[in-house]
Structures are given as C-alpha cells and as structure tokens.
C-alpha cells in the first residue's frame, strides 16, 4: 500500500506519524543533556540507539550529571525500564510477533509504540500503530539525539546556558502526566522527600534508588482503591 493511501485510510498510521514527530523532536533535549552531564557525543548516541527508552535514558544521564556512580545510573535506568516489560506482555498478547519480528519489536517497545497500538480497535490497525510509532520514534529520536549532542558540545559550559535547568524541566515534564489523582501526587511528594533526606547520608545517585524502593513497595502494598497509578497506558 502506498504511503498516501495509508495516510488516508489508517488512523493508526496518522497517529503513529504524529507521535513520532512530537517525541522524536525532544531527542534534541536528551542529546544536549547527555553531553552536558559529561558523556561523550558517541556515548549519548549509543544510549538512544541501544537503550532506546526515553525515561531510562534521562534517568541515566540525570545520575551521571549529579556525580553518581555507574552502578547507580544503571540501577535508576533499569528500574525505570520495568514498565517496558509490562508493555511487552501487552504487545505479545496483542500482536504476537514471532522470530526476528519478536526480537525487533522488543527493541521498539516503548511508551509511545505501546500506547499507539493499544489505542486501536482492530488487529491490522494495532499492528500499523505499533510499527509506525516504533520505527518512526526510533529514527527521529536518534537523529535528534545526535543533533542535540553535537549542539550541546558546541555550546560549552552547560550551566551558562541553563542546561541544568533544562534537566529539571525535563524530569518534571516526564512526571507530570502521571500525576492524575491524589495517590500518585502523594507518592511523588513522598519519593522526592525521601530522596532529599537521603542526600547527606549516602553517595550521589543512591537517593534515587531509595526512592525507587519506596515506589515499588508502595505499588505492591496499596490496593487499587479507585485511583491506582496509571501504569501501562490504560493497561490492566
């Protein structure tokens, strides 16, 4: 099918393309923050090519920027990636890819591709939505990461340009859509408070992992009394 026909006939394709552009563009902020944190241009690009899950990538460079150890950066990124396993389960049930397609779709399983697929009613549209958003975000996210990393490198001293402020805004922007209802807000406040209390007591990076443990225990112990945290794009 031609792309123009696909554009006219498939709402999943249109949604996938728009989400790719919107998400891909902010790869530029990730690229700039990666080099501002102290990673090289290639390391920053490698994160987008290989890790390819925005939240975890931001977490990784967030810990690097704060002077945290490698193991803390790895821990924060890995814990933030846990939700991708939930998306993976949903995509396996929804799309049922086999062999090579399964290996490829695993790499492309992120918030955006899962959400686009889950938003469709029939099987063909779910497939189109997943692959359009997955491939689209992958290509653009990586292009704009490279652009941002090169730009960040050229800018020099990161704090002069307010790049540390950009990191703050980026994390708040990632958190914001998840703060629907009283419970997630209470959890966010508690997690931030616990992390700050831990700052003078433990090495950099570790307060973030302590907050993660709090979040995990919170999710395990709370009953889904009405406002459960919106976990997986309207999953469960």
């Amino acid at each position, binding site marked *: 099918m031609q792309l123009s026909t696909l554009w006219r006939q498939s709402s999943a394709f249109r949604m996938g393309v728009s989400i790719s552009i919107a998400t891909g563009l902010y790869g530029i902020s990730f690229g700039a923050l990666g080099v501002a944190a102290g990673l090289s241009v290639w390391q920053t690009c490698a994160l987008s090519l290989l890790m390819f899950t925005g939240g975890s990538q931001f977490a990784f460079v967030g810990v690097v920027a704060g002077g945290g150890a490698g193991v803390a950066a790895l821990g924060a990124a890995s814990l933030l990636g846990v939700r991708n396993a939930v998306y993976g389960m949903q995509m396996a049930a929804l799309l049922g890819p086999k062999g090579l397609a399964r290996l490829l779709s695993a790499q492309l399983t992120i918030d955006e591709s899962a959400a686009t697929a889950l938003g469709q009613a029939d099987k063909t549209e779910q497939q189109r939505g997943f692959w359009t958003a997955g491939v689209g975000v992958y290509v653009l996210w990586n292009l704009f990461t490279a652009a941002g990393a090169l730009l960040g490198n050229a800018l020099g001293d990161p*704090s002069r340009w307010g790049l540390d402020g950009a990191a703050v805004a980026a994390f708040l922007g990632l958190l914001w859509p998840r703060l629907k209802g009283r419970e997630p807000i209470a959890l966010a406040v508690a997690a931030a408070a616990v992390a700050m209390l831990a700052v003078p007591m433990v090495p950099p990076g570790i307060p973030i992992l302590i907050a993660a443990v709090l979040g995990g225990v919170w999710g*395990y112990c709370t009953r889904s009394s009405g406002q459960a945290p919106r976990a997986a794009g309207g999953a469960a």
Partner: protein
Amino acid sequence: MNTETVAQIGAHWWLWVLLASAIAYATKLLGYGVPARWLHHPRMARVAGSLTIALLAALTAMNTFASGQQLVLDARLAALVVAAIALTLRAPFLVVVVLGAGASAAVRWWM
C-alpha cells in the same frame, strides 16, 4: 565541568552505557516471554507504575536541589517553578524544557 574531568570520566562510562542498554533490552524481551495470564495480575502493573512515579519524582528533586551530598537552593529552583507553570498551562514538552533552561540561565545572569 571542565574538559579534563570530562575526559577522565568519559571512558569508564562506556561499560555502564552498554550494560544498562543490555538490561533495558532484556527487560523489554522478558515481557514478550512471560505467560499472558500474568498480565491479569494488576499488582505487577501497579508496581511498575509506582516505581516510575517515585523515580521521576526523585530525579526531579535531585536535579533541582542536590549538589553532590548537599542540598542547595540555586538557579535550578527557577527552572522547576517555571516548568511547573508551563505544564499547568499545557505547554508541549519541548517548550517546557526550553523555558526551564531559560529560567535558570536568566537567574544566573542576574545574580
């Protein structure tokens, strides 16, 4: 951060970049492998959701107030406030990030 420090920390980060990327992929692939009935266990989704919120909240707070092992108030607080206002007004992500950078750069310029 000066160029010397950047070069020093540069090399050892490769190991962590690659290791963390391998774990990220394994996590995604793991999801495709677990039995579908696990999907119906809402506790799994709740844990993943709460983890995400707690981590992002902690990352926001750390990037605003932490400086090594100290808590400080500096130009980054302006970024937090401006970003919160922009998000309340439903500004797109990229605009929020640019405004955050502008806020902390402007405060530093003044002080």
